[in-house]
């Protein structure tokens, strides 16, 4: 870890709006699977073998979540591609995983 010590210290505390936006997109990309997991684990709460949850309702719920996730993921990726292309100044930390 010591090798990148100076680089780490030189890391700016605040970044330009563009870079900031890009980083928040990554945050969203990281948060999305957590949301998906939560929604898809809702069936854990459903009672077994009763009429309470109809199969069609379950099917619709699961596939709606699925479609929603696909759409949001696609939107995130296209937003990322757009910011990457439009970036006047490349984010120096673009390749790093653990930016602030």
């Amino acid at each position, binding site marked *: *870890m010591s*090798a*990148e010590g100076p*680089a780490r210290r030189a890391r700016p505390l605040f970044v330009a709006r563009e870079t900031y936006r890009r980083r928040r997109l*990554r945050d969203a*990309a*990281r948060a*999305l*699977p*957590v949301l*998906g*997991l939560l929604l*898809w*684990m809702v*069936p*854990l709460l*459903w*009672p*077994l*073998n*009763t*009429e*309470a*949850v*109809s*199969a*069609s309702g*379950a*099917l*619709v719920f*699961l*596939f709606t979540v*699925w*479609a929603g*996730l*696909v*759409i949001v*993921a*696609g939107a*995130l*990726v296209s937003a*990322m*591609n757009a910011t990457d292309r439009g970036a006047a100044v490349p984010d120096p930390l673009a*390749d*790093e*995983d653990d930016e602030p």
Partner: protein
Amino acid sequence: MIAMQALAVISVAYVLFLFAVAFFAERAARRGRGAWLRAPVIYTLSLSIYCTAWTFYGAVGTAVRGGFEYLTIYLGPSLVLIGWFWILRRLVRIGRSQRITSVADLISSRYGKSNLLGVGVTVLSVIAATPYIALQLQSVVLSVDAFRHADPAAPVVADSQTMTAFWVAAGLAVFTVIFGTRNLDANERHHGVVTAIAVEAIVKLAALLAVGIFVVWGLMGGVTETLARIDASALGEWQVSGGRWAGLTFLSAAAFLCLPRMFQVMVVENDSDAQLRMASWAFPLYLMLMSLFIVPIAVAGLEILPAGANPDLFVLTLPLASGQEGLAVLSFLGGFSSATSMVIVAAIALSTMVSNHIVMPIWLRLREGTASFSGDVRKVVLRSRRLSIAGVLLLGYLYYSVSGGGAALSAIGLVSFTGVAQVLPAMLGGIFWRGATRAGALAGLSVGFVIWMYTLFLPSFGAGTLLPVNLFDQGPLGIAWLRPQALFGIEGLDALLHTVLWSLSLNAVVFISVSLLSFPQPLERLQGAQFVTTDHVGGGARSWSSSAAQAEDLMVMTQRILGAREAQDLFLTEAQRQGLSGSLPDPTPDFLEVLEKRLSGAVGAATAHAMVGQIVGGAAVSVQDLMAVADETAQMMEYSARLEAQSQELTRTARQLREANEKLTRLSVQKDAFLSQISHELRTPMTSIRAFSEILRDSADMRPSDQTRYASIIHDEALRLTRLLDDLLDLSVLENGQVNLNLRHGMLADVLDRAAAAASAEETGPLTIRRRSDNEEVLLYTDIDRLSQVFINLIANARKYCDAPDPVLEIRVRGDVGRVVIDFIDNGSGVAPDAQDVIFEKFSRVGEQKAGGAGLGLAISRQIMVRLGGTISYLPGQGGAAFRVVLPTDLALAAQ
């Protein structure tokens, strides 16, 4: 009814079409027109090999048997891809930067290029994949059978099922050998294969969607109607237990990351982050579409088809039963595509692993010691890979024919998933945790593997087949808590969840604990740093030392592995980068690093490391080496510091010697001067004594007054001689240490008083003595007489030699702990610097012979002070002659 012959023709045509696609894609890539081959959409479609025949046909069967549980198999991978920013991005980057060729290579490379780990993962993968391949063969056979039953005219051939399986396996082997081993660098893209798979992905999606649409709108009459009929069917209630829902989602996600074939298309074939970005939303979409119509198909099959029909074939039998032959053929092709694409990629991935981690190391071991490689390594690698492909398919075929394709096979999918998921802890630990060690990975994998074998894989053949029945009831040797399906006495768990829980949790626990307790090898630490910080460290830490490696030998070896042209290109580029004019670069560590990475793309990290190691002479730099070097440097520095110290000491000694020599020379001069002086001193009284005694002897008539005067002169001169001789005697006694000290108590002030009085009485002269009597109240225990002798001498000297017009002597007394310091400072011109170091020598006299002393006073004083345990020294820079006497207040105490 479609004839079997027609089906065969269609199948062959389809296969030929795939060959053509692969061929043209390969040619396009070769001609440099293959940009579209790297398109993210192709990458995304190639991921579809996750959907095998087991999911194409089997999902409906699973839905019929277990309700919505089939969805979990798709939910896990969807989550992995939607969360690509967490794991996949890193995995893919590591795969690119380290030129990883397989999942076994990843693990082996991460943990110090350990081939043992590579072998372990390979064996695990082959064991887990073989039944899975058998399952694909079975699905093709069953689907063909479905047509056969529908075609009464079909000839009845004995063993037709086995024959079908055999021909399918053989055909796949040929395809895979042709397109899967085209280029040796396993890390390079298999454009032909990937493109063919992408086409198959479209075919199977289209087939499933077509069947689904036909079912929903053709058979069921619309979406609302379908939903209503679903609710009315046996699947109408939520019947998946929470444990299986969560457990299978997790298991499929884990397997998605660890399956060798998935790793092959996802990581090894990956070109850029853009591919992954698209796949992150497009592949979940693909999976969603694949699973969308499963439940309607299942419900329709249950309603329409006769009871007892195999639900695993509903996708095929529904169109057949409805007379939709075209749709049935499409469905057949979809299933065929699912099966073949999976088998092809699995065979490529497994053959790479087997070849790189088992065959090549053995081959290398056999020809160990031969510095350069005789024979064409390239051919060996390719041949071993081709044989491995054939071997893997043969294994699958044998497994199929031996197991007879029973129902046991359909359960094997999840069993296989659980097996490959054992790699997960080592994989994630390897890319996120630098503390993960080889020993930990090995231990974790072994534990997971053993538990999986014991609790799931072997029992999956059925009680009494491979494991005796009573083992399940009583446990091995009657140990109840070791029963395969109730470890630690916890019963009632679903068998699959039971294994997933225990194998993965114990695997992870052992992996982490052993990693924490063990210490990694240097190479492991290097690799660990590179893997975990891959985003920061672009290149990599060095692991080769520049050594006796011969560039030519390396060239020979590389040519035999990469092929002549590629090797020459590589060497030329490197030589140019080093600024050399020839085509052979210097074997610098950098170059060896590049070369090794390049070779590892072809034969795997461990083998490449071993090969380069053979030529370089095993000169991989270890941290120990580095530390040894550092040690050596430290030793050198220490040595040179010692040398420097020695030379400084020598210089110091030389200076001291020079000073001593100068002093000796001065002393010798002084001695000469003194000898003449003392002879003069002695002769003067002797002369007058002789003269006056002769007068007394020869003059008879002398007046008594004269007589008395002459006699007293003689007496005075004799006294003077005596005093001189006394001094000399005193000094020699002191120097010889034969003096007896007369120790007693006395006040310093009294001693000084006495000395001042005595000195004033002896000579006349205007000397003012300044003293501070309050400081002089010091009680001494010493030889008071000797001490006052020193003081008298110093005061007399000041009186004699002080050249100030108004001479003043200041006596300063300063008490200290256990000692007293007495300074005698006059206001004269002092002692010349060059004389300061000789004034305490015997016979030393300074300056003009103003008052005729023998020059013994200070010498005697010094000897006395040494005897009294103190010192006397000249104090320069006080404005006049200054002497410092340091005396212990209590000689008895000081002596202790």
